[in-house]
């Protein structure tokens, strides 16, 4: 099953009509942009440019889009996972779906956008079958309608054609290919315009006249930099706006004769507009606004106002010293590093405790981009920074021999799996690569490094398993299997390697649903043993104390989100009451890792935050495009 992190395709909306004609295919064209002479950067008309923040706070979600008139903003209400719409004039949100609390349903909405007439919202939905589908709901409420569902499409995302009767979709299929397709709301049919390999457009949008589809795509296999392409909506021609920089689509300007894009051609991400005619660039890109840090475009309104998200937040790696047996914090948490503050996360100690490996999001572009792997000498603070050749990576786990770091992630060819990153060179090598509709995550090393325990999800079989990979033979064996909706939470291996701890959940939802159970299972195989049972709480295993006598876990009793205070619960494995140790107030935490000395801990605390901004007065320089037919 692909996740939001695996595929970040984001299709935005178009506003006007579509005309179809049956004519002949034309050649693909590669338009190599004219290089600017030094000092000559074309400038857009910025005389009326104004930016202002329109929504901030912990509830902000960046997965929606503005209505054409800019009054409403669709978004996800993450307290439940429902689709919601925010009235930007009153500053109030209301839910358009009502799935119930997280205790009642694991379904949720994702990317959404308004129909051209503003009356409906198209959105992605992660459904009860653990699959993504596309739905439409009226802005005023009512029952949602499933408009696209295909079990062979792992991840569909779409926006409207200007006629309101068709959708432009980017589909990620089970055979690892990705498509740009036109879906009919009338008959459910799909016309495939382009099929790609494992690469996919991040954004695709239909022009206001419905004749052109702009999208961005990495032209090379070996690097993630993108170019913008313009494809005729009837499939008859395509033009690549080629430039060595990383260019990413923002969307069509309301005149349909300019494309907005972000580009790092000046060294930092900036907003540009490109004049177009008949799908081809007719002039140099014009700089609108430079130095945009981690913005994610949400949409351009009919008046040309660009809505965008700015990623912020206070998530970081912290170090503290804890006496788990006494239940006391000996040294309060402090940031592990003072560079890229707010961008660091998920740390692990080297086996000798001298180094800390952590991930650091250093991309100037918002969204789930590949993080850097930083290896920091604890005593000196000296750091080595690697940028592994991966699409994304998570959950570093240092190998017992200290030579490599095991991560969950996806390589440049979009193969999900477990990968080893050399702690010396940053070179990436696969340990396990998943089959389609399956994933390998949550890896844990055995102390001798001979075995890797991991979680394997198989969407096709609706099963999730605890597996053990024998590194010498390459064979995996099953320790436990769960049939969805039952499953388990994150894995933690005991210091002696003899037991794995996890939280089992039944998966049924509702008022009578069973609570999670903290269990351990012998790594050699055998029946699990219950350690603790909870009622209506989300529980995450964090690890073990170094003496192996206690399990560390985090719990959250709130149905509408996580406990704002990060507290570690210490549960004796032999039984007894758990002890609560509050580590950080007012911010939640995760990924706690205990130093080999048994007292120091590294953990991630805080969370990503988002702010919604609007940039008004985005206007190309005058006379950069031919006048529209009939225009005066």
């Amino acid at each position: 099953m692909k996740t939001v992190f695996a595929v970040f395709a984001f299709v935005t909306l178009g506003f006007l009509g579509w005309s179809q004609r049956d004519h002949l295919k034309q050649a693909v064209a590669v338009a190599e942009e004219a290089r600017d002479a030094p000092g000559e950067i074309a400038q857009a008309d910025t005389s009326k440019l104004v930016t202002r923040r329109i929504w901030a706070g912990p509830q902000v979600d960046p997965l929606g889009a503005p209505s054409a008139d800019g009054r409403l903003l669709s978004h996800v209400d993450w307290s439940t996972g429902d689709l919601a719409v925010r009235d930007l004039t009153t500053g109030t949100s209301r839910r358009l779906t009502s799935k119930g609390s997280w205790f009642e349903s694991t379904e949720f909405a994702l990317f959404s956008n308004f129909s051209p007439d503003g009356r409906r919202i198209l959105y992605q939905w992660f459904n009860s079958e653990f699959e993504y589908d596309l739905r439409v709901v009226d802005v005023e409420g009512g029952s949602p309608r499933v408009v696209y569902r295909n079990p062979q499409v792992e991840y569909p995302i779409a926006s409207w054609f200007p006629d309101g009767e068709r959708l432009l979709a980017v589909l990620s299929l089970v055979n690892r290919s990705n498509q740009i397709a036109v879906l009919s709301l009338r008959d459910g049919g799909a016309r495939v315009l382009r099929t790609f390999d494992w690469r996919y457009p991040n954004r695709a949008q239909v022009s206001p006249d419905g004749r052109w589809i702009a999208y961005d795509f990495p032209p090379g296999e070996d690097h993630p930099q993108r170019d913008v392409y313009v494809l005729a909506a009837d499939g008859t021609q395509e033009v690549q706006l080629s430039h060595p920089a990383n260019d990413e689509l923002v969307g069509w300007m309301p005149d349909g004769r300019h494309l907005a894009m972000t580009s790092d051609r000046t060294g930092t991400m900036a907003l540009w507009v490109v004049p177009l005619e008949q799908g081809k660039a007719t002039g140099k890109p014009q700089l609108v606004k430079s130095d945009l840090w981690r913005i994610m475009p949400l949409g351009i309104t009919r008046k040309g106002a660009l809505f965008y998200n700015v990623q912020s937040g206070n998530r970081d790696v912290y170090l503290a010293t804890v006496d788990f047996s006494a239940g006391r914090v000996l040294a309060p948490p402090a940031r592990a590093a003072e560079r890229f503050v707010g961008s660091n996360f998920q740390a692990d100690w080297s086996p000798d405790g001298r180094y800390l490996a952590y991930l650091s999001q250093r991309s100037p572009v918002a969204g789930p981009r590949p993080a850097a792997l930083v290896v920091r000498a604890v005593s000196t603070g000296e750091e080595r920074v690697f940028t592994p050749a991966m699409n994304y990576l998570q959950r570093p786990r240092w190998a017992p021999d200290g030579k490599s770091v095991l991560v969950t992630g996806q390589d440049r060819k979009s193969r999900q799996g477990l990968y080893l990153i050399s702690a010396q060179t940053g070179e990436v090598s696969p340990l396990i690569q998943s089959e389609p509709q399956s994933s390998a995550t949550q890896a844990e090393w055995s102390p001798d490094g001979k075995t890797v325990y991991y979680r394997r999800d198989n969407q096709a079989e609706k099963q999730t398993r605890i597996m053990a990979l024998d590194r010498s033979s390459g064979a995996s064996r099953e320790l436990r299997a769960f049939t969805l909706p039952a499953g388990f939470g994150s894995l933690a291996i005991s210091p002696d390697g003899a037991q794995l701890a996890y939280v089992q959940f039944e998966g049924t939802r509702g008022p009578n649903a069973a609570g999670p159970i903290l269990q351990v299972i012998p790594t050699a195989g055998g029946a699990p043993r219950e350690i603790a049972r909870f009622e209506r709480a989300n529980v995450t295993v964090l690890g073990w104390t170094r003496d192996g006598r206690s399990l560390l876990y985090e719990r959250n009793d709130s149905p509408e989100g996580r406990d704002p205070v990060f507290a570690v619960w210490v549960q004796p494995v032999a039984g007894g009451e758990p002890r609560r140790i509050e580590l950080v107030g007012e911010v939640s935490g995760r990924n706690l890792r205990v130093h080999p000395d048994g007292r120091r801990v590294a953990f991630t605390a805080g969370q990503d935050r988002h702010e919604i901004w609007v940039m008004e007065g985005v206007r190309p320089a005058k006379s950069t495009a031919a006048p529209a037919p009939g225009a005066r």
Partner: protein
Amino acid sequence: MVPLLLTLVALLPVLPGCGTSRMVDAGQSPSPFRPLPVGLDEFFVLPEDNPPTAAKVALGRRLFFDPVLSRDSTLACSSCHRPERGFSDTVPTSIGIAGQRTTRNAPTLLNRAYGVSLFWDGRAATLEDAVLQPVRNAREMDHDPVRVAGRLARDRRYAGEFTRAFEDGVSTRNLARALASYVRSLRSGNAAIDRYLAGDRGALSPDARAGLRIFAGRGNCVMCHSGATFTDERFHNTGISWGTDPGRSGVTGDSADRGAFKTPTLRNVARTGPYMHDGSLGTLEDVLAFYDRGGNPNPNLDPEIRPLRLAPRERRALRAFLEALTGQ
């Protein structure tokens, strides 16, 4: 052969306007390529100076099956690109004029409209560049396209068809354009895999579904055989005939391309054996065994090719999947 040719003709797309009136292409006539089979993309690359028309496709079809293109009038394009074999040949390397052996296997011509380069070494960028090369090749048709054009110009029927298709009538350029237009019309889709990916769960057998998982997963096949036509249109070294054929390096001059050949489409692969650029693997089982052992070791072996260690049932599943790529 004749019934098969008739079958082919019957399967061709409807060709409006074909042979009924003088039609000079103005780029506005209905596409001769409709309807589009399920599984193929609407977009494909076309040279701007040769938009397809029904007249061009009809002319190209006639030329394709006519031995007039060979020096001694014994061989047609269809002699080696046999429709009943997915427009490929039945032998490892085809027999050209005067019984000469060609040097490489005749690849399928189906869905070449989607190709971004032609021939095993990619030496032709477009079909227009490609189609006259076998005519000129001394081992294949060994003829001079100028002379061919002269012969065609003297043929009243051909002359008329050329005039209907092109404003300037018979020429070597238009000969290439007509043949290219016909080859471009050879499209095959609506295979079981296409119906499956479009949402028909029952289109693939359980074995074929298992094969798909291996194809896109552990088998790593999809890293090269990707996209709508199951080819990345790139060049890879598998070690086949290493040291005897320069492959792509013969075009680029780059030693890194030595022994690399273009990934062939897998559509209709069950019908297009023998396989590989030299036709050295006779059956799909041979091909699966070859990749299962990780290809032939050599300094340029593609890093994506590595031993798979497939169980016999997994090979059977892959075979079932490959058979599900047979289209219409």
